[in-house]
């Protein structure tokens, strides 16, 4: 029996300041709700520039408390008003000097469900993330939202199959992968890794990437956000590689069961043989 949810992703360009960036995202939530979307995920560090192109302590100021900071509260009210589940990738300050790359998940009634902290933190040219974030310590939470079980796996995390698997084992039906990745660096991987994760773990993946070149560096963020289903097929077209775009797609969650009944990857995995994977 089909169980269709209408899910959305939003990719956009840096506007130049935090407040207008927040407003653009509020408008996107309204636009998504107007279409009947029930869940929406924003891009990584959604209300800021991708400041990890430089190493500047001034950007620590973008971090705020989750869930007690103003942005989470603001979007809790919006989620409640619109009746939409929101996934908010943010810069989190647990306490001064303890900062994470985090996504907060808000249910459709505005209640705060929890957060995921990015586990794998890169430190390469144009992606100086270790300067800004501690590695996440949240484990692999799954959020039981109004539309289904949602997981989040942030940007660079996507290169590590173990987290995808952990989210699958915990029951995720849709995993969002908010990202900031640039042309030339990962272009051909972008349409390869998440579809592979979707089919290996037999769930839906929503991949989001920002667009445009920002004033802090040469990174050319190439958008092309998409949903991919448990058979690794794109759901509709992928988004523009240059323009802001709201991606709204109907996902039939019944496909999980259909695909898992056909390909018994969960039954046939062999955890007893995976000891070496967790050797330090």
């Amino acid at each position: 029996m089909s169980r269709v949810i209408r899910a959305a992703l939003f990719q956009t360009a840096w506007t130049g300041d935090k407040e207008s960036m927040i407003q653009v995202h509020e408008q996107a939530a309204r636009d998504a709700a107007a279409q009947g979307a029930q869940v929406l995920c924003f891009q990584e560090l959604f209300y800021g520039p991708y400041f990890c192109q430089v190493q500047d302590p001034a950007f620590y100021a973008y971090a705020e408390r989750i869930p007690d900071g103003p942005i989470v509260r603001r979007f809790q009210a919006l989620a409640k008003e619109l009746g939409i589940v929101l996934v908010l990738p943010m810069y989190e300050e647990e306490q001064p000097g303890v900062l994470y790359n985090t996504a907060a998940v808000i249910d459709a009634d505005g209640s705060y469900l929890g957060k995921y902290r990015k586990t794998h933190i890169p430190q390469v040219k144009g992606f100086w993330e270790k300067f800004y974030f501690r590695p996440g310590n949240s484990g692999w939470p799954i959020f039981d939202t109004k539309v289904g079980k949602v997981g989040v796996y942030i940007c660079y995390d996507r290169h590590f199959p173990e987290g995808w698997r952990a989210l699958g084992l915990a029951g995720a039906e849709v995993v969002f992968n908010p990202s900031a990745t640039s042309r030339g660096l990962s272009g051909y991987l972008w349409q390869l890794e998440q579809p592979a994760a979707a089919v290996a773990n037999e769930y839906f993946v929503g991949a989001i990437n920002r667009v445009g070149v920002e004033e802090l560096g040469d990174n050319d963020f190439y958008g092309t956000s998409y949903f991919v289903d448990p058979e690794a097929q794109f759901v509709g077209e992928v988004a523009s590689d240059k323009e802001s775009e709201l991606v709204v797609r109907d996902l039939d969650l019944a496909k999980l069961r259909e695909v898992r009944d056909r390909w018994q990857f969960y039954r046939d995995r062999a955890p007893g043989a995976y000891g070496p994977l967790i050797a330090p």
Partner: protein
Amino acid sequence: MATALEPALSVRQVLTLDRVLAGEPEVVAGAGHLDRPVRWVHVAEAPDVGVMLSGGEMVLTTGVLLAGDEHKQTEYIRSLHRAEAAAVVLGLGRAFPVPPDVMRRAAERCGLPMVVLHRPFPFAELTEEVQSRLVRRKFAAVSLSESVRTALTGLITACAPLQGLLDEIAVHAGCPVILTNLAHRVLATAGERSAVDDVLRDWERIARQAGGSEGDGWVRAELSGGGERWGRIVLCGYRGDHPIGRLLAERGAEALVLHRMLHGSAHSWEEQSARGLLTDLVSGAVPARQLLPRARAAGLPVNRRTFVPLVVRDGDPVHLDRVLRLLGLSGLVAELADGAAAVLLSLARDQDAESLTAHFAARLRTEHQAGGTVVAAADARAAWEEVPEGLREARHVADAVADHSAALDLPPVVRLRDVHLRGLVRLLRDDPHVQSFAERELDGLLRGRETEQELLPVLRTYLATGRNKSRTAQLHHVSRPALYRRLEAIQACLGVDLDDFEQAASVHIALLAHDAQQR
């Protein structure tokens, strides 16, 4: 034509040439590998022949330097194998009266075809025969490449449209040719209609496969320029040799890149594709059902959808497309003739067409300073077959309100029911009775001097505002007394009393008919 080209010569084919048969060839090893292509024929008596080869050669030898040394014989075969030779041919005679067992075994182990010739045989004849065939084949490929390039360059310099180029490529390929953007959206197609339709019918499945491997006979070439890829050309089900298919696809890709650099951007190709489709839908020249595969391949969701036909006067397709993306709405946008842009929205069945149309129209007004944009909307259509009629309805509404916004503040969305008398007059504008009625009623102004003709806009505003004098004066930036003088002049010219409802209505209808004629 590609089909006129001989395939590459295989070892097996070389062995069946008349001149070779005269040498009574016998395959003594590697019989399972006779389909290897022969790139060249090389006569070599050197024991270290391997270092002279670059792969694909058929090596001819009498073995004169190998006789009596089994180690050398084995090493000789191994070195040919390492050099990826296609085959070795040994002429029996003084050095080897019978096939040498050591060499045969070594060749069998390596999977190297080994052939012995039982009769003395001039190697020169064999090399001449094979070489000339290979050269002819190479020449044919170069010649094909050149003729395709010349034809395509000729089309480009003659400013031929994109379709002309694709048609030319399809003639050479003998199979459907498809141009796509990176999102696998089909921008243009060429080839036999029914074959193209077969490909398009299955396009959604092909396009949605991540990684995109399309199987045998699918030859793709990337379109790129300035370090950026922006599309690809696909030969679908090419039946000739793969290298020739590659060659055709690459020549095609080069020409398309050149065409884009000289005549426009990839974006405009997407527009052209949408324009072709929407224009065909509006015109009714092709039944809607036949256009369904094209619509699907152009990225429009068509299964279990509701379609909303819209027309925006003076709408910029690029801007309209940007707003659609921003709102997450699926749709096609294209400029129709006379500057109006058509938008065909595709909504899920549960979505509310009216409210989403209003949402779209409102956003058009707030984005990019398009303040007075009016969206002419037809009622949503649940069946694809009804889309052409809907598009025509939207265009009719857009035409009917074309000059309306100058005088009145129109809502962001107008529909058939909003255009009232204008809609009717618009439909009747070609009727000779209506035309002569308009001429008769407005004769005094239309045939008057220039100063009298300048009164026409004042009359238009006055009637459109429901004979509101203060609003008319305001819109024309004149004082009330100045307006009164102009209205008196109008009444004198036309010989009517505009305070009389029926006379004013008559002049109004005449003016609407006159305006409808002008567009």
